[in-house]
C-alpha cells in the first residue's frame, strides 16, 4: 500500500513537486534568515568582545564598579598567580592582559617644546610577545594604514585620523601624559611606528595603542593590569560564560574592593542589555518568520488535501476506511515535509555559506561612534541545520491534519456527491 501511495505522489506533480517546491522555498528562506540574524548579532557581540570586554573578564570589584572612569587605581595585581589559577581552572580559555588608560598626547617640536596636544584613549595589548594572538584578534595587521607595526618597546600606533589631526608621521616622537595607578603623573616618550584605521569612528577618533609591557612601565603597573580578558576557542556562548563566571566567583571569599571578580559580556552595563535585546529580537524575528512560513505551508497543505476530495470519494467508495485515508494523507505530508525540508535546508545552507563571506558596510558606518564591525556576515550554527524542519514538517502536516478533519467529519455521501460534481 505504501509503495502504491508513493507511486501516486511521485507521478502527481501537484502532490509532490509543487508542495516540495513550496516547502523547500519556505525552509530555505528560514535557514538563510536564521543564519544571517545569528551571524549579524554574533558579529556585533564578537567585535565588542575582541576590542573591549572579552568573552569573560577578570578585574577588581572596585574597577568593575567604576569601569566607566577606567580606574587603574583599582588595577588587578598579583597577576602571575591569578593567571596561573585561571589557566589551571579554565584551560580552554585564553587570557589576555589589557590596560586601558586616558591621557594627553603631546607632540614636541624640534626644540622639545609642545607643538600640538590632544586627548587620547589608550589601549595596551600584548603586541611584542612571540605567541601573542592579540594582533590577529584585533586585526591590527589588516588595519595598518601607514608605517609598520611596533617591533620593539617604546613604539606606538596611532589611529590614522588622530595622526593626521596631529600632523605627525611614522618616526615622530609622541609623548603620553597620563597618571600612574598610584595617582602620580606619568610621562613617557614613544616613537610612532605607524597608523591604523579600524573603520569604526569609536576607535578611529583618538586611539593610541602601545605594548602592554610599555604601559605597565609607564603607569607603574608592574605585575598589574586593568583587566584580564578571557576568550573562548569559538564564539561567545552565554551558557558557557555563565558557568565559568559562577565557578570562578564562587571561589572568592573576600568582599575587598581589590579582590578579583569575573564578569561575562552579559554583565556589561551596555553590552549586557544589547545581548539581551539582540537575543530577544532575533528570537522574535525568527518566530515571526516561522509563523508566516507556517501559515503559507499550512495553506499549501490545506489546498493539497482539498483538491483531493475526488480521490478521497473514490477511495471511500472502494472501501478504504476514513481513518486509513486520513492517516495515509498525513504520512504523505510528512514525506513531503521531510523531502522539502532537506532540499530547502541544502539550498538555504548554500546561500548562507555565500553570506558567510559577509557584506561590507564600512562605507555606510564610517562616521558611527558605535563599536561595531564593518562587515556583516551570516553564521552557520547547529541550529541552522534543523530550524527549517520546524515550518517544513510541522506546518505541512498541520495543514493536512486540519483539512483532513474536514474530510473526516463530512458524511461519506456528501464527499461522494462532491466527487460526482
Amino acid at each position: 500500500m505504501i509503495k502504491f501511495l508513493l507511486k501516486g505522489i511521485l507521478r502527481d506533480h501537484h502532490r509532490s513537486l509543487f508542495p516540495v517546491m513550496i516547502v523547500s522555498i519556505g525552509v530555505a528562506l528560514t535557514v538563510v534568515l536564521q543564519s544571517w540574524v545569528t551571524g549579524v548579532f554574533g558579529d556585533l557581540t564578537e567585535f565588542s568582545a575582541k576590542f573591549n570586554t572579552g568573552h569573560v573578564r577578570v578585574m577588581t570589584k572596585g574597577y568593575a564598579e567604576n569601569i566607566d572612569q577606567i580606574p587603574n587605581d583599582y588595577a588587578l595585581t598579583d597577576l602571575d598567580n591569578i593567571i596561573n589559577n585561571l589557566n589551571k581552572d579554565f584551560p580552554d580559555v585564553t587570557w589576555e592582559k589589557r590596560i586601558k588608560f586616558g591621557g594627553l598626547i603631546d607632540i614636541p617640536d624640534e626644540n622639545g617644546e609642545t607643538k600640538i596636544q590632544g586627548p587620547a584613549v589608550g589601549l595596551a595589548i600584548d603586541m611584542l610577545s612571540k605567541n601573542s594572538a592579540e594582533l590577529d584578534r584585533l586585526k591590527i595587521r589588516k588595519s595598518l594604514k601607514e608605517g609598520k607595526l611596533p617591533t620593539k618597546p617604546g613604539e606606538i600606533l596611532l589611529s590614522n585620523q588622530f595622526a593626521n589631526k596631529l600632523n605627525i608621521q611614522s618616526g615622530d616622537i609622541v609623548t603620553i601624559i597620563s597618571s600612574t595607578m598610584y595617582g602620580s603623573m606619568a610621562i613617557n616618550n614613544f616613537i610612532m611606528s605607524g597608523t591604523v584605521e579600524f573603520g569604526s569612528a569609536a576607535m578611529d577618533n583618538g586611539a593610541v595603542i602601545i605594548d602592554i609591557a610599555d604601559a605597565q612601565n609607564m603607569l607603574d603597573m608592574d605585575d598589574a593590569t586593568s583587566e584580564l580578558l578571557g576568550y573562548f576557542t569559538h564564539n561567545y556562548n552565554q551558557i558557557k560564560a555563565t558557568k565559568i563566571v559562577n565557578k570562578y566567583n564562587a571561589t572568592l571569599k573576600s568582599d575587598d574592593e581589590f579582590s578579583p571578580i569575573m564578569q561575562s559580556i552579559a554583565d556589561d552595563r551596555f553590552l549586557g542589555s544589547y545581548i539581551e535585546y539582540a537575543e530577544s529580537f532575533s528570537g522574535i524575528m525568527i518566530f515571526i518568520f516561522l509563523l508566516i512560513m507556517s501559515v503559507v505551508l499550512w495553506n499549501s497543505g490545506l489546498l493539497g488535501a482539498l483538491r483531493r476530495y475526488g480521490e478521497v470519494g473514490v477511495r471511500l467508495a472502494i472501501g478504504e476506511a476514513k481513518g486509513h485515508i486520513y492517516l495515509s494523507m498525513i504520512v504523505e505530508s510528512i514525506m513531503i515535509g521531510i523531502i522539502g525540508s532537506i532540499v530547502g535546508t541544502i539550498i538555504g545552507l548554500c546561500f548562507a555559506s555565500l553570506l558567510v563571506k559577509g557584506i561590507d558596510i564600512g562605507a555606510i558606518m564610517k562616521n558611527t561612534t558605535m563599536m561595531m564591525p564593518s562587515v556583516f556576515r551570516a553564521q552557520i550554527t547547529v541550529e541552522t541545520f534543523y530550524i527549517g524542519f520546524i515550518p517544513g514538517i510541522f506546518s505541512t502536516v498541520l495543514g493536512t491534519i486540519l483539512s483532513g478533519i474536514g474530510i473526516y467529519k463530512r458524511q461519506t455521501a456528501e464527499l461522494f456527491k462532491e466527487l460526482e460534481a
Partner: protein
Amino acid sequence: MNKKALISTQQLIKHYPVGGGKFTALKDINLNVISGEFTGLVGPSGSGKTTLLNILGALDVPSEGNAVVLDHSIGNLSHKQAANLRNMYFGFIFQTYNLLPVYTVYENVEFPLLLQKLSHTERDKAVKQALEWVGLTDKIKSRPAQLSGGECQRVAIARAMVKVPKIVFADEPTANLDAENSHNILQTMLKLNNDIGTTFLFATHDEKVITYLRRKISLNDGEIVDDKVI
C-alpha cells in the same frame, strides 16, 4: 425455491435538512433484491434513485426505517464496518468513471485488492482475470487519459469486479458514453452477471440501460411507483 434477499428495506425514509426545515428524498421504501438480479432503479432526476443507491451501498444512512444488506443493518454500521462491507462485498461503477488518473489501468484495478491485503500473486491473477473479462488486457500499462470513455468505463467495471463482489452498484454508468459503447458495457455487465452471478443494481434513466434490465423499480418523488420484472 425462495432465494434469500441480499437487499431488504422496510419503511426506509431519508430526509435532508434544508434551511429551517427538511427535504424528504425517500418515502417509505420497501424493497427486496435477491442474489443474481440485474435490476434498475429508474426515474427522472431528483426521484431519489441515487440516494437509495448510496444508502444500499453503505455510503449513506437512512433517517428512519431499516435497510439490511447482506445481513448488515446499514443504519447501525460504524464508519469502519461500512468501509469493510464496501471493501469486501460491494463494487461501484460511476457515471464519470472516477479512475485515479496517476495510476495505470493495472494499478487502478489492483487498488481494491491492496485494501484487502491480498498477496502480490493473488492480486496479479485477479487483476489479469478482471481485465480479461472487460477485454482490456492490452491496455494494462495505459493511464486513464490515454483511454477512450468506453475503455475507461470498462476499467471501472474491472475495478468493481476484480474482488468478485456480491453486489455491484452502478450509478448512471452509460451517461457519458455513446450508444455503441453503452451497449458494449451493458453486454459486459450482463455477461458477468450471468457467468459469475454478481447482482447488479443500477440507478438510471437511460433507455439503453433499461432495455437490458430484468427488473425495473420506478421511483418518483422519493417513492416506488412501480416494480416489475421485465
